[in-house]
């Protein structure tokens, strides 16, 4: 996608600058942007590695399995067809827990495995089943408890309170998830 958007951004900007007299501004800005990419990556380095280290500890414990058990009622509601399918059930709940903990790297492989397991029971192989649709929609909503990336960016930009947006993120996530789940439940009956 960026292979299309990126050149368009650059081309229209430079053409616009030529006609609007901002070309000197543009010229100066080019190398500034390279510099700021470096300085930002450097500050980003610490926070991201730190969080990755902490999360790795969580990955190696049974914390995920424990949390998966807590989610049982929720998963029964979201995936009624999967109650009997233990394998899919397990993979779905582990994927959701990994997402909650912000384990993007772990969540995706688990999610893909869950998709494959659900596909086995799918009567129409070229079309997503209800459970698969719900599963994808949940995965497109960011349900992590701690928005680590957003916090890392904020602290690298010297925010007064890098984690000061956690509550806002929770509210926005819950609303987005509710809208996603509700519309999926409604739409799956009609389409």
């Amino acid at each position, binding site marked *: 996608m960026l292979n299309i958007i990126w050149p368009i951004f650059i081309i229209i900007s430079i053409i616009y600058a030529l006609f609007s007299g901002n070309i000197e501004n543009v010229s100066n800005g080019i190398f500034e942007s390279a510099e700021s990419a470096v300085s930002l990556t450097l500050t980003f*380095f610490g926070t991201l590695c730190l969080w990755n280290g*902490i999360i790795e500890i969580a990955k190696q414990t049974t914390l995920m399995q424990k949390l998966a058990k807590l989610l049982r009622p929720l998963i029964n509601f979201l995936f009624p067809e999967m109650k009997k399918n233990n394998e899919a059930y397990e993979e779905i709940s582990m994927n959701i827990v990994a997402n909650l903990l912000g384990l993007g790297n772990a969540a995706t492989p688990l999610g893909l495995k869950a998709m494959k397991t659900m596909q086995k029971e799918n009567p129409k192989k070229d079309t997503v089943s209800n459970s698969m649709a719900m599963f*994808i929609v949940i995965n497109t*909503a960011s349900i992590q408890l701690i928005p680590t990336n957003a916090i890392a960016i904020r602290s690298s930009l010297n925010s007064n309170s890098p984690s000061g947006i956690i509550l806002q993120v929770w509210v926005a996530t819950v*609303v987005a998830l509710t809208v996603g789940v509700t519309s*999926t439940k409604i739409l*799956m009956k009609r389409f």
Partner: protein
Amino acid sequence: MKFVNFLSASAIPLIIILIIIYGLKEKKKVFDIFLDGAKEGIQIVVALFPTLLGIFLAVGLLRNSGILDFIIGIISPVTNLLKIPSQILPLAMLRPISGSGSMGVAIDIMKQYGVDTLIGKIASTIMGSTETTFYTIAIYTACVKVKKIRFVLAAALLADLAGMITSVIICQIMS
């Protein structure tokens, strides 16, 4: 409000202590594991740098050329009506399409308008509460070779939109 701030401030330390105590309880070598994870973090950052560089270049050009202000001027009647600050529009449009791209744009917005301003907070909240919808749908359907996705894209984008509008509203309420 005080409790809210306390909750925000203590969420990260509490999660860290919970994870570490859990690791100790299960007799893991927590420091060694921490080092492994941190090492993996290096790769993530290194992989992110080229994208960040490319996005900063493109977004810097958009801004310095004046075309971003021009576009914002055109769509501002609509965004004003919805009470969305027009400065976050580039982020809102790129967010479902590209993860690293939207991260670059979000950083650019926070640098430009201030990370602790309303606009900076909205950008952070959008980044924290949404995902790269197109990418997720693409890999999840490709792995099982499913072609017909029914209503999935519509439901996912509707959720994104709801999340973004909520981000704007909640940041305005809590600022």
